[in-house]
C-alpha cells in the first residue's frame, strides 16, 4: 500500500473513529485503518484531530493503530462493466468478493470496482488534434446488447487531443487517448474515470419535465404519474409494499438504466432480484432485464456507515449514465435506513440532535439527494434524466415523523401506502386519497398526443367519484347502505369495481404484472363508460341490481387478467358488449 500515514487511532466507538496527530489529511479523503486496512472516509477535520467513519466492522481496532490516507476523496469508478453488476455500498463487487471470501463478507478486502483484465471493444469517435472538453464522448463500447456505453472525458478535463488509439480491444486501464492541457503535463485518458460520490456531476442545464416515466403500474401511470427526471417518495409501514412497488417499477418502467439501491434492507430481497431479473425479459428490448440494471446492496446487517454511502454511490452511477444521454431510474430502498445511519453516526460523534435524535442537517442532506434528480442537457449536448424513487419506512407507519415530513418538502410525487389496503390485500396499496403527483398537468399533453385524447377527462371523472365515495361511506357507516338512493349507491358500486378491476394489480400474475398504456386507457374508459351510462339508466328508472347482474360485469372485473398486452382487441369487444347491454337496459326504460 503506497498510502501515506496521516495519524493514529485515538478512540474507537463502533464505526466512528477519532484520529490524533493528523498531518495533511483532506476532508472526505478515503482512508485505511489498522492492520486489516479497513476502508473509511474522513468526515471531520480539526487542527490536530479528525473523525473518520469506517465502512467495515471495526472489531479489534485499537488506539494507536495507524491511519493511512489514499490521497483522494471517496469515489466510484465509472466505465464499462457496471451494468449487470452487484456492488456493496462503496462499490466493491460482491460477486468478486464471494470468490475470495465465500459465504461471508470478510473485512479488509480490496478489489477494484471494474474488472481490470476484461477487454472492451472501443470505437473512437474523435480524432487527434480536436478540441475536447469535459463530458464529451471519445467513442463508445457496446457494454450489453441494450447499452452502448459512451466513453466520456472526465468532467473537469479539457484540451487538445494529442493522440487517440485506433478501434480495438482495451482494458479499463489502457490509455485510449492523450490530452494536451494547460498544465505542463499531458493527461492520459482511459475507458474509466473516477468521480467523488458526494459531488453532483455537472451538466449544461436543467430541462423541463414533460414526459412520463411509464411504469406499467396502473395506479401510478393513470392516477399519480411521475415524469422522467422526477422525484417520488413511497412511504409505508412495514409490509405495505414499498419493495414490491419499487421492484415492479424497476422491472417494467421505460427507463434505459435502472440503479437499484438496497439500502439497509433484507438480504433475501437482493437475492430475489438477482435470481429473477436475469430471467425476465424487458418487453421493449427483448433482452434480459439484468442487462440494464445495476444493483447496490448494503443490507441491514452490513456496516451502517456503508449504508450511508450507498445512496451516493448509486446516484453518482446514475448521473454518469445520464451524462451519456440515457434515462436512468434510481430506486432507493429505503431512504429511512440511510437517514438512520446518519443519525447513528451523528450520535456517535456526539453532535446535538434535532427531532427524534436525527441531526439538524437531515433536511439539507435529503434535499441534496433529491436535487440530483432531473432531466438535463448533458455536457455532450444530449438529453438524459435521473428519476429518483425513494422508499420511506416511517416508524409505526406514522407519516408525521421527520424523514417522511422532510422528504415531502423536496419531492413532487407521493405514493402513500396504506396499512388498511395492504391488510385487505389490496395491492399495490397506494392510497388514492393521500397520494398526489405534481407532474399530472405536465403529463397530460403527452398522454393526449401519444395515447388517447380522453385520458385526462376519464381520470378526472374517476378521481371525483373516489372522493365522493369517501363522503358516502361515512353516511353508510352511520345508517347503512339502504339509506342511500340508487344513484349514490351506484357510485359505491363503481368505486368498488374500479378498485378491484383497475387499481389492484397483482405483481405475481403473468398478464397483470404490467399494463401497457393503451391497455390502461381502454380499461379506464370502459369503467367510466359503465359509470356514465349506468348512471343515466338509473336516473331513467333502472334498478341497481340489473347493472350489477349484467353479464359483461364479470368480464370487466377480469379484463386485467384476461386481456394480454400484445392483443388488446378483447377490450374493444368488452366495450362493445357493454354499450350493447346498456342500450338494451335503456330500451327497457325508454
Amino acid at each position, binding site marked *: 500500500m503506497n498510502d501515506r500515514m496521516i495519524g493514529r487511532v485515538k478512540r474507537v466507538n463502533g464505526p466512528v473513529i477519532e484520529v490524533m496527530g493528523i498531518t495533511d489529511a483532506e476532508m472526505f479523503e478515503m482512508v485505511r485503518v489498522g492492520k486489516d486496512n479497513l476502508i473509511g472516509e474522513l468526515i471531520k477535520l480539526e487542527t490536530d484531530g479528525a473523525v473518520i467513519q469506517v465502512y467495515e466492522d471495526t*472489531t479489534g481496532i485499537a488506539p*494507536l493503530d495507524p491511519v493511512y490516507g489514499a490521497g483522494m476523496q471517496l469515489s466510484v469508478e465509472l466505465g464499462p462493466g457496471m451494468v449487470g453488476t452487484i456492488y456493496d455500498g462503496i462499490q466493491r463487487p*460482491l460477486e468478486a468478493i464471494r470468490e475470495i471470501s465465500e459465504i461471508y463478507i470478510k473485512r479488509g478486502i480490496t478489489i477494484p470496482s471494474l474488472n481490470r483484465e476484461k477487454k472492451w471493444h472501443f470505437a473512437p469517435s474523435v480524432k487527434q488534434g480536436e478540441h475536447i472538453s469535459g463530458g464529451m464522448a471519445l467513442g463508445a463500447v457496446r457494454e450489453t446488447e441494450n447499452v452502448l456505453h459512451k466513453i466520456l472525458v472526465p468532467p473537469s478535463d479539457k484540451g487538445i487531443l494529442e493522440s487517440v488509439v485506433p478501434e480495438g480491444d482495451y482494458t479499463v486501464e489502457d490509455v485510449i487517448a492523450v490530452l494536451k492541457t494547460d498544465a505542463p503535463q499531458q493527461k492520459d485518458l482511459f475507458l474509466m474515470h473516477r468521480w467523488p460520490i458526494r459531488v453532483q456531476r455537472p451538466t449544461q442545464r436543467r430541462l423541463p419535465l414533460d414526459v412520463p416515466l411509464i411504469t406499467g403500474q396502473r395506479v401510478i401511470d393513470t392516477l399519480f404519474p411521475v415524469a422522467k427526471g422526477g422525484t417520488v417518495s413511497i412511504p409505508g409501514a412495514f409490509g405495505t409494499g414499498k419493495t414490491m412497488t419499487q421492484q415492479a417499477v424497476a422491472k417494467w418502467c421505460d427507463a434505459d438504466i435502472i440503479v437499484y439501491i438496497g439500502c439497509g434492507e433484507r438480504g433475501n430481497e437482493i437475492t430475489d432480484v438477482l435470481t429473477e431479473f436475469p430471467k425476465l425479459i424487458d418487453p421493449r428490448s427483448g433482452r434480459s432485464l439484468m442487462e440494464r440494471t445495476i444493483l447496490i446492496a448494503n443490507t441491514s*446487517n452490513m456496516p451502517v456507515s456503508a449504508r450511508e454511502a450507498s445512496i451516493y454511490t448509486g446516484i453518482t452511477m446514475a448521473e454518469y449514465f445520464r451524462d451519456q444521454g440515457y434515462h436512468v431510474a434510481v430506486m432507493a430502498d429505503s431512504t429511512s435506513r440511510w437517514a438512520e445511519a446518519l443519525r447513528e453516526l451523528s450520535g456517535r460523534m456526539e453532535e446535538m440532535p434535532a427531532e427524534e435524535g436525527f441531526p439538524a442537517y437531515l433536511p439539507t442532506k435529503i434535499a441534496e439527494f433529491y436535487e440530483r434528480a432531473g432531466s438535463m442537457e448533458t455536457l455532450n449536448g444530449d438529453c438524459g434524466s435521473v428519476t429518483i424513487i425513494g422508499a420511506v419506512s416511517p416508524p409505526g407507519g*406514522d407519516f408525521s415523523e421527520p424523514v417522511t415530513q422532510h422528504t415531502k418538502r423536496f419531492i413532487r410525487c407521493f405514493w402513500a401506502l396504506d396499512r388498511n389496503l395492504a391488510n*385487505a390485500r389490496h395491492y399495490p396499496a397506494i392510497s388514492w386519497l393521500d397520494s398526489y403527483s405534481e407532474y399530472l398537468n405536465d403529463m397530460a399533453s403527452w398522454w393526449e398526443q401519444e395515447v388517447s385524447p380522453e385520458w385526462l377527462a376519464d381520470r378526472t371523472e374517476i378521481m371525483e367519484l373516489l372522493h365522493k365515495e369517501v363522503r358516502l361511506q361515512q353516511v353508510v357507516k*352511520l345508517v347503512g347502505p339502504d339509506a342511500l338512493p340508487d344513484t349514490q349507491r351506484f357510485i359505491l358500486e363503481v368505486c368498488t369495481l374500479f378498485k378491484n378491476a383497475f387499481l389492484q394489480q397483482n405483481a405475481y400474475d403473468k398478464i397483470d404484472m404490467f399494463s401497457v398504456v393503451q391497455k390502461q386507457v381502454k380499461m379506464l374508459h370502459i369503467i367510466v363508460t359503465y359509470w356514465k351510462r349506468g348512471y343515466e339508466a338509473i336516473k331513467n328508472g333502472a334498478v341497481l341490481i340489473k347493472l350489477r347482474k349484467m353479464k359483461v360485469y364479470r368480464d370487466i372485473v377480469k379484463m386485467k387478467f384476461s386481456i394480454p398486452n400484445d392483443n388488446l382487441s378483447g377490450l374493444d369487444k368488452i366495450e362493445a358488449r357493454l354499450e350493447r347491454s346498456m342500450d338494451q337496459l335503456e330500451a327497457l326504460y325508454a
Partner: protein
Amino acid sequence: MPERENRRLLSGREYIGVDKIDGPLIFVGKTHPVGYRELIECVDKQGNVRLGIVLESSTDIVVVQVFEGTSGLTLPDTRIRFSGKPLTISVSKEMLGRVFNGLGRPIDGGPPQRSDIELDVNGMAINPTARQYPRDFIQTGISVIDGMNTLIRGQKLPIFSGNGLPHNELAAQIARQAKIRGTNTEFAVVFAAMGVKHDVARFFTRSFEESGVLENVALFLSLADDPSIERLITPRTALTLAEHLAFNEDMHVLVIMTDMTNYCESLREISTIRGEIPSRKGYPGYLYSDLAELYERSGMIKGYKGSITSLPILTMPNDDISHPIPDLSGYITEGQIVFEREMDGRGIFPPVAGLPSLSRLMKDGIGEGMTREDHPHLASQLFAAYSYVKDVRNLASVIGEEELTPLDHNYLEFGKEFEQKFVSQRKDEDRSIEQTLDLGWEVLRTLPAEELHRITDEEIEKFYGK
C-alpha cells in the same frame, strides 16, 4: 510492525483495580491499546471469573460491558484481563441434546463442551450473492400458517404476541410438527431463552421430551433471574451454533428465540447507562441494525445443504404493534404471525389475526408442484373475504345485524366458519396441506360464487363446486 507485536504480548495482561462501575459497565483507565469488541475476563475478590466485551476503547479509557453483571464488584479489587480477541464459542454437533447458559457454558451438569471449532459469536454479514432464495414449503400442520402465512425453509418469521397469549404453545407445536413433505429430514432445534421465566423453559423442554426430539435440541437459557445483560449475547451464541449446524454440518435448523422484547430492553438499558441519544421510547437508534444482525443470520446458502429458519417470539408491549420492538422487527423479518387478544378471548387457538399476519416468502413456495395449484388464489380470496367480514362486523355493530343486506349476512357466516373451522384447531392437530386447502374451500362455500373475484372460473369449477 512493533504495534502488532506489542499487542500480542500485552493481551493477557491483567489490570488490578478499575476506575468506575456503572450498572453492567466498567471503566478502566491507563491500559495498553485495547481492541474494540475484545473479549475480557473480569475477576472479583473471590476469584470468580465473569466475561465481558469492550464497548469503547480510547487512549484514556476503556469501557467494558460485563455479561454476568457487576454485582459484588469493588473498584480496587476487581481485576480485568484483556484477551486480544473477540468473544468466541466452541461449537459442535454434540451440543444438541444439551443445555447451556447464555454464554454457551453447559448448565446441565454434563461435561464442558470441547471442540476444535471456535467461532466469533458476532458472526459476519452474509454476502447477498451467496444466498439461495428460500422456496421450500414447510408444512407446520397449522391451517392458518400453511394456508395463508406459509412458512418457508430459511425464512425468518416472528410471532408477535402479547403477555399471556399462547405463543409458546404455537412455537412448540410448529417445532414438533414442522416437516418438508416428501423428505424425512428432521429439524434440529436451537432454542434461545432471554429473560423468560423458568416455567417457560420447562414447558419447552417437556414438549421436546414428550415428542422424543430432545436429543435434537440445544437450549441456551438466560432466564429472568440471570443478569439482564447476558441476554444480549444469548441469541448470538445460539445463532453461532445454528450457523455451524446448518453450514458446516448440513442440517436444517429451526431457531426459536424468546422473548425478543426482553433482549431489546437489555439493549435499552445499556444504551441509557452510556448516555446515548435515544430515538423512540428510549430505545437506541441502532436497535434496527442490532436486530438485523440477529434476524439476517437465517437463510439458505448456494451450494450448502443446510438452512436456518427462525421463529423469534416477541410480546408486544400493550399489544401495540407500532411499538418500536415489533415495528422494527417487522421491518426486518420476512413477515409476521400476529396474535389477537380478542380471538384468544373467544377461545380460538391459534389466535392468529387474519389481516396483519403475512408471510412474504410464501409466493414462491406455494402453488402447483409445491402445495397445490389452487393455493395462491384461495389464500388471496380468504384474505379478501375476511377483510370484508371485518368491515361488515363494524357496520353491524353500528346499525345492527338486522339492517345488513343478505350478502353481508353471508359474509358474517363466512367469518364465523373461517375462524372456527379453518383457523381454530387443537394443539396436537397436525393437518396436511390438502386438508387445510379443502377446509378453505369448505368455508368459502358460505359465499356465492360471484363474490369470488380472485378465483378463476376453472378453479370455481374444480374446487368450489365440489
